[in-house]
């Protein structure tokens, strides 16, 4: 890496008055550093450089500005850089101030950085604190998220993961699920947002986190919020259900057209199923899901699902839906006390299941590879003119 004197020289190039070409090269060099782990670690020890870069985000050259943001994005992706960025470079207030400006041209970059910084709980808490200090509440963020075209120059899709990350914190969850406001309701339609998998995933991640608080389940499942259809729609398909099955479903799931597509991203599908599973923790939740005819949707989904891991989660959900009610005292599955030896056995079973799933997946991949190889072989044989 660079020596101290080289670093000092590099720093001297990062001023607004430096010749643009020298400045540009210096920044490109740092961009390269930020692209790999060692480079990032080096930069971690040189907060002055990062401070200078932040200042250059107001540089008249658009290329320089873009590169500076790119560097910060890379740095923020590395968790070990978070403390430096937040505490030493104090990057947050500036980012947040610009973020809410509907005219600001680099809001997409900012949302990516904030989304990275909120990945892990510690820095997430700091980010949340700064948001409060800068008077950018969650209300503002939700508003920006839900307003189509809030910023003409930025798509703001990364607001999705940002919100999702923030809901690691109970304060954020409480705000989103505030009964006296209308917050979570405004997020629900985005579970079907076709134009961006990032946005969609962010919303579903948010809902997933929110469902860990089972005290809110009844409200979430009630008409005041009605979370269930929005979790089921991405999993529901075009298959025609009988009139009887249809009429028992929530309104949004009835009579789906024949071109209805299911969620394409398997991770998101898995997250949806896990959220539904969370909602079955309470007796009331289980009853609601059973009453609202969730089972036929899952039945059709299971027939369609090819991914092994997602299928397994679906099966878990189906088990709860068609299984008997647990005995008294065990009704809230999240509050059941599991004796230690049982817990160990369950952990073992989990590990075993995970291994089986991975083996299954490997098998699938190998079969696919083999198919590809066979196809290649045939091609080659044809090319070499061999007759069989």
């Amino acid at each position, binding site marked *: 890496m660079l020596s101290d004197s080289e670093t000092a020289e590099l720093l001297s190039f990062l001023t607004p008055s430096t010749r643009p070409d020298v400045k540009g090269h210096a920044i490109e060099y740092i961009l390269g550093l930020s692209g790999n782990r060692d480079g990032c670690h080096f930069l971690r020890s040189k907060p002055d450089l990062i401070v200078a870069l932040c200042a250059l985000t107001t540089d008249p050259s658009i290329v320089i500005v873009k590169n500076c943001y790119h560097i910060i994005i890379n740095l923020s992706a590395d968790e070990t850089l978070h403390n430096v960025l937040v505490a030493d470079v104090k990057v947050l207030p500036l980012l947040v101030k610009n973020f809410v400006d509907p005219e600001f041209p680099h809001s997409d970059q900012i949302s990516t950085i904030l989304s990275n910084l909120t990945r892990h709980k510690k820095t997430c808490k700091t980010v949340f604190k700064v948001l409060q200090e800068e008077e950018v509440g969650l209300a503002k963020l939700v508003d920006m998220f*839900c307003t189509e075209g809030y910023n003409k120059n930025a798509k703001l899709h990364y607001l999705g993961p940002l919100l999702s990350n923030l809901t690691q914190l109970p304060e954020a969850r409480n705000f989103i699920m505030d009964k*006296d406001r*209308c917050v979570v309701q*405004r997020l629900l339609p985005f579970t079907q947002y076709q134009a961006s998998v990032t946005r969609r995933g962010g919303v579903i991640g948010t809902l997933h986190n929110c469902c860990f608080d089972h005290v809110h389940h009844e409200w979430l499942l009630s008409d*005041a919020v009605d979370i269930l259809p929005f979790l089921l729609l991405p999993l529901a398909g075009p298959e025609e259900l009988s009139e009887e099955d249809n009429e028992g479903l929530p*309104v949004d799931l009835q009579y789906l057209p024949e071109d209805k597509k299911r969620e394409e991203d398997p991770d998101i599908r898995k997250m949806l199923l896990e959220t539904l599973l969370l909602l079955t923790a309470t007796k009331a939740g289980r009853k609601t899901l059973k009453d609202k005819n969730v089972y036929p949707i899952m039945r059709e989904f299971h027939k369609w699902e090819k991914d092994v891991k997602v299928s397994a989660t679906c099966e878990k959900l189906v088990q709860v839906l068609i299984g008997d009610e647990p005995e008294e005292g065990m009704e809230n599955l999240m509050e059941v006390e599991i004796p230690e030896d049982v817990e160990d056995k369950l952990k073992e079973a989990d590990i075993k299941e995970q291994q089986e799933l991975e083996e299954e997946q490997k098998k699938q991949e190998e079969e696919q590879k083999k198919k590809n190889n066979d196809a290649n072989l045939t091609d080659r044989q044809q090319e070499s003119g061999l007759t069989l």
Partner: protein
Amino acid sequence: MASPAGEHDSDDGWDEFFDKFKTQEYKNAFKPDTWEEEFDKIPMFMKTAPEEFDPQEYPELACLQALIHDEDMSPEEKAKSLKDEGNAFFKEKNYKKAVLAYTAALKVDCGDQELATVLLTNRAAADFHLGNMRAALNDAAAAKKINPNHLKALIRGAQCCIELRNFSEAIQWCDEGLKAHPTDKKLQDVRLTADKLKRAAERDARKAKIKEKRLQSEKEVLLAAIKDRGIKLLQSAKPSQRGSDSEDEDGGSSAAISELSLDGLSSQEIVGAQVFLDEQGSLHWPVLLLYPEHQQSDFISAFCESNCFIDHLAVMFGEELPPWDVDRKYNTQNLQLYFEDEEKETIYQIKPESSLLDVLQHKRYFIKAGTPSFIILVNGSAFKKHFLTGKKIKKL
């Protein structure tokens, strides 16, 4: 009992006083026979505001007019007074009058934007109760333009959108409102209602679409079944539409088939009856039997294609003869069945033992208005002779 002398005197005096009322009226008394009418004219006791605005008859309501034309009041006072009049009418649920008052107030351009917002919102409310949703929505929007955070205007606007079944717009109004008033219960309730109605309407649209598709495919299956049998449907279309190959016998039938459309199945004569395909794959047709001799007809609502004419005729003419058969000659064995090929001016005689399908498949048989019809004549009758004169007759 003895009464003191003085009281005796005043008793007389009181009696005198009371006696006076028997003969003298007090000033401004109600007349005994019209007291109810007069009672009703006093604003305090009025039950309903009068429709006619005759200032002579109803001096109190004329104050609206007076206010409008008052020279001495400042614009602000005028506007406020007119607003108060409007509010009073509103409380009595006299919304039409309220709108008039608010409109008059708005016309007084006194530059008070806050007052204007209130007036527009109030007028919107009055129009809302009158069912004038568009007018109400316009006023709510105008109020919102002046003051984007005016809660009542936002709520009213959303409610108008709901009544106009524009649910997405209603939700937009609510979301705008919730930005400034995030915890307002009414806004949240209206939003919830709009959202529910929107999703129900979407479901209804989906359901209708699926039903339409199903009906469409059922119709296509039906048409295919008819076409497969080589049966030809005639539309009310002119023969000129049939194309140049209508002369050619085979071409004629294919041209007619190519004209097969869903309209060809509608029966103009008998509403509600239509050909249908049963579960075993047989067609059942609505059939008209015509008796031109007596200008009568019989309608068979579902004649299965595999059934024979004789079966139906035996039932219809076997036991009792119809009342219009004055000559008592329409016995089953005397009946003869025909259909007419109008284009070629030919009459074809049908054997009663034939099945409906046999006849329908005849290359010169065209079904009009989705209802096959056949002519019945009595063998040996004078009418038959007359009817068949001049026509080409062919046997099937």
